[in-house]
């Protein structure tokens, strides 16, 4: 059974043709890119509209940002190692790497939620100024995507448990999640550059 599947996959991959599922997911990611683009444009327009409230310079801490960025960056390479294991059909390793990626992602979301809670507690919630509304909308949309990614990782871990081979269908799922996860990392590059670091200049 495992033998058959492998041969089939190898045949399909002969010219590195991606499955239509993966291409369809790529198109979805491009539309997601437009959503983030519009949120970045909104933030760029409203970035100085403080309405007497706190500015990014007063609110953001570079140490917390560095830890969040590190977690997301490391989770990218751990997912990559998971994909390599998947191509070698080493399911226990795939589950292990997905688990590590999940924990890193969870740490990221935890830090972000904590940061948001502190800001709201200090009276710097999304209702304080246009700048903060744009900030919370943009950063929370990214955080929500990461949370969806976490749910997706758990789902795939459960589906992989107890199986002995990775059929093409499962490989497509792992590839789509790989694209999603790395795409979110790219969005985060733009977030930490233009939202956080640019406000600290």
């Amino acid at each position, binding site marked *: 059974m495992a033998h058959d599947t492998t041969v089939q996959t190898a045949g399909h991959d002969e010219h590195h043709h991606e499955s239509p599922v993966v291409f369809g997911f*790529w198109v979805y990611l491009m539309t997601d890119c437009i959503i983030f683009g519009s949120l970045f444009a909104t933030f760029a327009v409203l970035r100085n509209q403080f309405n007497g409230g706190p500015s990014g310079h007063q609110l953001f801490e570079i140490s917390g940002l560095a830890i969040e*960025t590190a977690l997301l960056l490391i989770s*990218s390479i751990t997912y990559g*190692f998971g994909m390599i294991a998947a191509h070698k059909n080493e399911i226990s390793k795939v589950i292990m790497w997905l688990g590590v990626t999940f924990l890193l992602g969870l740490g990221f979301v935890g830090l972000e939620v904590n940061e948001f809670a502190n800001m709201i507690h200090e009276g710097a919630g999304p209702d304080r100024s246009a700048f903060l509304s744009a900030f919370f909308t943009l950063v929370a949309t990214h955080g929500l995507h990461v949370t969806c990614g976490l749910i997706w990782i758990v789902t795939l871990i459960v589906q992989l448990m107890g199986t002995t081979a990775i059929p093409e269908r499962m490989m497509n799922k792992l590839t789509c999640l790989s694209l999603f996860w*790395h795409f979110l*990392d790219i969005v985060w*590059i733009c977030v930490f550059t233009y939202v956080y670091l640019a406000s600290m200049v």
Partner: protein
Amino acid sequence: MSEIHTSSSGESHGSVTSYVIGFVLAVILTVLAFAVVATHSLSPSGTILALSVLALVQVVVHLHYFLHMGGGSEQRWNNMCFVFTVGFVAIFIIGTLFIMNNTAIHMMSR
């Protein structure tokens, strides 16, 4: 069998080496971006310019090493889709900034 499988998909899906190279580059670029801001070594406009260049390079690094984008014919549709989206988003963001800035000047709100 597994050998054939690995060799046929190894290139387009990345290897340990390519992931590690991408990761090291990404870490260097990220640390540089944080260092530029933390050390205040450049003028404010210089810092923004440096951050933009570092972010752009890092996005390209991630696209190449993690999302495995390349110029191959099998990725033609992916690339066309990507170029359209990037062009659309660029027009969208630059256009928004231009129009809103222009409006603000004419309404004398700045």
